């Protein structure tokens, strides 16, 4: 994600950002209208103020004679107060709507892309995109886009007022105005590169500091922790030097803008002054020109300030676009209906699968599971075990071959109806926000309390329920704080017993468990496998020696299959795995 981005990627991101505006409804447009109307009010205010002042100062009109224009002036001012409030509020409400909608859309898209995509892209990084990335869009929509609109209209409006009354001032504006964007582009291009580098460095330095804090204990062990203070200072200082040299250039673009603006304001003041002296200009016009001159350049300055918001927004959009453009697996529509005897016939037929830009994860994999019992999938890491299971769960679609369930092609089946036949227990079972009871009930929302409790009892949840302050109603908080790994596993098994799905799949169930819980788990699995199909992905091999069939995967394909005894005889790889496992296996 940190590669320098190509022009096409950048423009794709910009286009996409503009398309997302529709989520804000009319709010952003309203904000822009408010700000532009406020701008018109300002022009009118300048004209009126100049008129009143000219009348009072040079036409010897008493200020009390100017009541009507004075009141009109006050009205214009109050209108601007209200408009400024609405400009701000509409812009942020609009941006907020977009953020909410996009976050939801991206999250939904990720659920469609499935767990394997999430793991490939790292869930922590994706969550950053959904959180901080989406937040970065706020300034883009609430600051940058309105600034663009304002900049497109206000200078023209001022010019339209100024040109008819004084061509010379109009000419000064006309000559300098194109120079502003020109300078901004000339210096801005260089500054953009430099600025990007600057932000990269800033985040690198920041991460360095975090890294040092996280590893402080390790630094202490090597008695290197005190020396690190100097290193921290010197890195920050290096950062300062390099950034300052960048900023010297980056600030030039705003310098050019300020220079042009200030110099033309000064020039307007001087030329107006002389023509007033020569009597060629009315004072009310001259004063109005002086008041409007800074306002002519203000939109450019605002745009310059919002530029950083734009860059951040585009960078975030590029990451989002990767998610948006990823194609999820196709979805079947056919409802799956279980056979009366609930027995499943699963058949992998010459399955091939490759993750994008990676080597083949599965190739020519064929196997059969046609009766209830305990099946194990083993193999060295990277052999394709998880990929194989993801294709069965429906999260990945094989690029070659097909999987059939009771003779029906899995790709054609509606995912939800197929998943009703499944129960799944991962290494770290997920707990949801809610009570303990709700966490188990998840598996079958129609189950009554008695059924839930029975399933929980079977899973041994009652063994620790007495330790919980609120028993069944114990609220389970963020990431299941206060619930141990063993307890999680029991909750997961309670879900399994409640759902009574014909097919149960477990991923390395005995990891992180104490010996008692491990033994209990093996017993419950064997018990469940009497009537159901149970598939276990295993790294530790002792627990699956009683399996009906062990499928040994190697480099994406089936290397051997059979019972423990058969494999011991026929498969060298299996013997090696067993030897390694017994040699290194933990006794607990």
């Amino acid at each position, binding site marked *: 994600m940190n590669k320098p981005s190509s022009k096409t990627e950048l423009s794709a991101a910009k286009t996409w950002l503009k398309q997302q505006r529709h989520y804000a409804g009319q709010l952003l447009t309203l904000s822009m209208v408010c700000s532009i109307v406020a701008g018109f009010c300002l022009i009118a205010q300048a004209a009126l103020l100049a008129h009143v002042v000219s009348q009072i100062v040079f036409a010897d009109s008493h*200020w009390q004679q100017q009541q009507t224009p004075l009141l009109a002036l006050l009205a214009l001012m109050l209108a601007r107060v209200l408009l400024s409030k609405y400009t701000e509020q509409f812009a942020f409400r609009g941006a907020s709507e977009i953020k909410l909608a996009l976050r939801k859309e991206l999250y939904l898209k990720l659920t469609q892309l499935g767990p394997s995509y999430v793991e490939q892209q790292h869930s922590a990084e*994706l969550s950053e995109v*959904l959180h901080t990335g989406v937040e970065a869009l706020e300034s883009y929509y609430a600051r940058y886009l309105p600034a663009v609109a304002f900049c497109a209209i206000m200078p023209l409006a001022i010019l339209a007022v100024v040109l008819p009354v004084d061509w010379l001032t109009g000419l000064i504006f006309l000559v300098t105005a194109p120079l502003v964007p020109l300078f901004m582009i000339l210096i801005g291009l260089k500054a953009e590169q430099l600025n990007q580098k600057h932000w990269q460095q800033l985040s690198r330095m920041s991460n360095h500091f975090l890294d040092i804090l996280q590893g402080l204990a390790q630094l202490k062990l090597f008695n290197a922790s005190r020396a690190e203070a100097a290193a921290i200072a010197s890195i920050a200082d290096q950062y300062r030097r390099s950034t300052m040299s960048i900023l010297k250039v980056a600030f030039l673009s705003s310098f050019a803008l300020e220079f042009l603006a200030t110099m033309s304001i*000064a020039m307007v003041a001087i030329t107006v002054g002389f023509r007033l002296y020569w009597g060629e200009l009315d004072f009310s016009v001259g004063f109005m020109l*002086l008041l409007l001159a800074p306002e002519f350049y203000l939109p450019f300055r605002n745009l310059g300030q919002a530029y950083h918001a734009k860059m951040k927004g585009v960078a975030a959009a590029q990451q989002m676009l990767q998610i948006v453009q990823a194609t999820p697996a196709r979805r079947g529509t056919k409802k799956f209906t279980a056979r009366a005897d609930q027995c499943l016939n699963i058949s992998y037929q010459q399955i091939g699968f490759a993750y994008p830009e990676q080597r083949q994860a599965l190739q020519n994999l064929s196997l059969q599971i046609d009766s209830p019992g305990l099946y194990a999938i083993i193999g060295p890491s990277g052999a394709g075990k998880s990929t194989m299971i993801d294709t069965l769960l429906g999260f990945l679609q094989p690029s070659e071959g097909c999987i059939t369930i009771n003779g029906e092609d899995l790709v054609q089946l509606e995912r939800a109806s197929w998943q009703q036949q499944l129960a799944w227990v991962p290494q770290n079972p997920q707990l949801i926000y809610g009570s303990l009871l709700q966490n188990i009930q998840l598996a079958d929302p129609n189950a009554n309390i008695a059924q839930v409790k029975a399933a929980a009892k079977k899973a041994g949840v009652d063994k620790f329920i007495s330790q919980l302050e609120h028993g069944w109603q114990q609220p389970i908080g963020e990431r299941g704080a206060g619930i141990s790994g063993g307890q999680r596993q029991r909750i997961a098994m309670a879900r399994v017993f409640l759902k009574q799905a014909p097919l149960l799949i477990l991923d390395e169930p005995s990891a992180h468990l104490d010996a008692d819980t491990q033994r209990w788990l093996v017993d419950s699995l064997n018990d469940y496998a009497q009537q159901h199909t149970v598939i276990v992905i295993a790294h530790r091999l002792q627990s699956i020696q009683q399996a009906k069939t062990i499928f040994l995967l190697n480099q994406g394909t089936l290397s051997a299959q059979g019972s423990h005894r058969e494999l011991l005889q026929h498969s060298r790889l299996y013997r090696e795995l067993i030897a390694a496992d017994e040699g290194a296996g933990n006794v607990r």
Partner: protein
Amino acid sequence: MSAKLNINHLHSESQAPPPSDRQIIFRLLSLTRPHWRWMGAGIVLALVTLLANIALLTTAGWFISAMAAAGIAGVSMNYFTPAGVIRFLAMIRTAGRYAERLVTHNATFLLLAQLRQWFYQKLEPLAPAGLQSYRSSDLLSRLQSDIEQLDNFYLSILLPSIVALIAVPILFIGLYVFYPTLALLILSALMIVGLLLPTWVVRKTATSGSVITEQRQQLTTAIIDGLQGMRELEIYGAKDAQLAQVSYYSEQLANSQLQINNINAQSQSASVLVINTSLWLSLILLGIALSNNEIPQSQFVMLLLLSLAAFEAVQPLPMAFEQLSATLSAARRLFSLADQQPVRAEPEEPASLSAQLARQPLSIEFKQFNFSYPKQSQQVLHNLSLVVNQGEKIAISGPSGSGKSTIVQLLQGFYPCPEGSVHIAGIDINHCSGEELRQQLSVVSQHSYLFAASIRDNLLLAKPSATSEQLQQACDIAAASEFIEQLPQGLDTWLGETGRGLSGGQARRIHIAQALLKNAPVLILDEPTEGLDPITEQQVMRAIWQLMQDKTVILITHNPRLLATVDRVYQLD
């Protein structure tokens, strides 16, 4: 325990009443003192730029009305001087603004370096025992964002406040000289925008900072839960419930942000209101003054523009003070952490362990030793007696929570040992300096950390003077060379945060290479094969055997093959 509870816990530790906002600000100021020259220069430049800009408008206003008056009256006037002044002010303003931005940014970066170094020096003696509650990376990144928040203290709060503080009296005096009534009107309006509105904003946003921080954390948790538990959530049909959860937190956060934005919008339009009303009133005041002949005709426009431009001095303040509460609470958290005492105070006159080792063999002896972690009642080690003589290899085994890893922490000098005794080469461990203790130890554990740096830098940490050959040799023995050679840049391969890019077994082998390089006499292995798959475990174990030769070894493990290699096994319960 949730993150929030931990923070509260830290607060409750300090007995003294919590410092007031003013104390916090003064402390922040005193921290920034070393760079006051740059900061001061930035403030002066900002002030000059501001005043030049106000003067530019004012002079221009005076110029055009004087020229108009002269034109009408048909008298001649010296127009070269004011025209020159206008050009001069325009140049001062432009150049001043550029210089100001450079100088203030330089000051900010100097402060940033200063703050990080200061904070690190405060934190370093506390680690790791004093930072136990900061172990989770959530809290560490919170720390980091707190420091980043302080980075902006100078530029976004201090600078505009001081500039306003100096500029307002100058502007007041400037106006007073010409027309005292107008000066008083403008001063009160300036006070409203520069003082009243910021105070209102500070009061309104006092709690919102911490609320938003918490809501952000909840949102991230919900998103990560949803992403990591996707298989399960979908299979149990709870996908939509999780989406609802994510949307809920997302909306909560958006609501709080909108509230803050509302406050900003209100304060902004309030300042527009005050400025315009005061402009309007100035117009009338000046009209009265003119009709009473209190001011000459030529000053009317000048004073009107001056009273409008004066607000530039205070206009940034309401927005700037929106950041104040966040900055103060960030500073409060950092100071309360920095003020903690190290859990184990270093002995004032440490006994020289290295001198003792010249006379005595390095033995480690725990005698009737009890230990509980500070502020916890539960005893982790109870009546422990254990001896390791030089060159011996012992193992400690026992269920989790039986205090095995505590022993490792104690030997590294991270905690005081008040009950019973621990002697190293006959010296009470409480009399040894932590650094000297750690010099004698190498530790390889599953919690060992790899830095986001090259593999070479990580290795050099263990022995900064090591030559390339020595690094190579250590990697060979640690069975790490094979995979390092396959990496695109070999030893110079950059490791991501927490050693990302390496598998568990590879990281463990780098730690073993580190221990080989350090070559300390005592080797502590804390579950060195935990979390590895069987094949990797075998490779790692071979490396460990190499490492254990000729060392005094304390081994914490369940691994039967490793247990078989030791002289004695101590069973904890």
